[in-house]
């Protein structure tokens, strides 16, 4: 069972993951907002800038839609890894890397249903408990 956390004031659920972009050979760690409303995983500018992603190297432009309207993004294959201290579970999925704007630098990256549907998710806001119990994965390795 992978344990997430709840923000103290926001009460928003977060899950920490290691992210690896094989084509770009870039890796790092990200605290994702758990978003059951997101079709897929979204990498926001706060994290793409932290990782030093060069947007001129990105391909596959996309226009994801949200409550703020239509945004600009690039689709890139990534490996997201999580740990429950017994195994490392890895998921090879496409993620949307959002193009920076004047308004989106402070937004956190989102983990969407592409990952969440691979297990049982518990979001217990009153008891501040967020867990993901994986049922399927791209790769599972014993620690």
């Amino acid at each position, binding site marked *: 069972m992978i344990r997430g*956390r709840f923000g103290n004031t926001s009460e928003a659920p977060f899950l920490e993951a290691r992210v690896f972009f094989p084509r770009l050979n870039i890796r790092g*760690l990200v605290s994702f907002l758990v978003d059951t409303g997101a079709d897929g995983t979204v990498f926001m500018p706060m994290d793409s800038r932290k990782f030093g992603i060069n947007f001129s190297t990105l391909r596959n432009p996309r226009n994801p839609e949200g409550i703020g309207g239509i945004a600009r993004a690039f689709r890139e294959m990534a490996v997201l890894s999580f740990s429950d201290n017994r195994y490392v579970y890895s998921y*090879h999925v496409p993620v949307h890397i959002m193009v920076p704007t004047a308004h989106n630098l402070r*937004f*956190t990256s*989102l983990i969407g249903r592409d990952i969440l549907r691979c297990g049982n998710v518990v979001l217990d806001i009153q008891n501040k408990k967020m867990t993901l119990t994986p049922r399927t994965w791209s790769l599972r390795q014993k620690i």
Partner: protein
Amino acid sequence: MRPLAKGKLGESPKQIARQLRAFSRAARILSSNRPRLIEEHPKEWVGIYDGKVSASAKSFKALLAKMRKRGLSPNDAIIRYIDTSERFLVL
């Protein structure tokens, strides 16, 4: 979801688990120490690494520069803006 061959992660499961443990500890500081962060770093960007605030700055760019100067990898740190306003977010 595509299958993934062993050895395609660039690091061993042990290394990945260790990084995730340290990063999760750092992330929990955001959850547990929010009042202190607001008091000490209002309207600043902070980089949390190895369980403590390792750098802070007024801009994101300045924070990254500070961290790199101190030999810390921003990729392995949790970076957040300490917002004192009560924004209503719909993501």
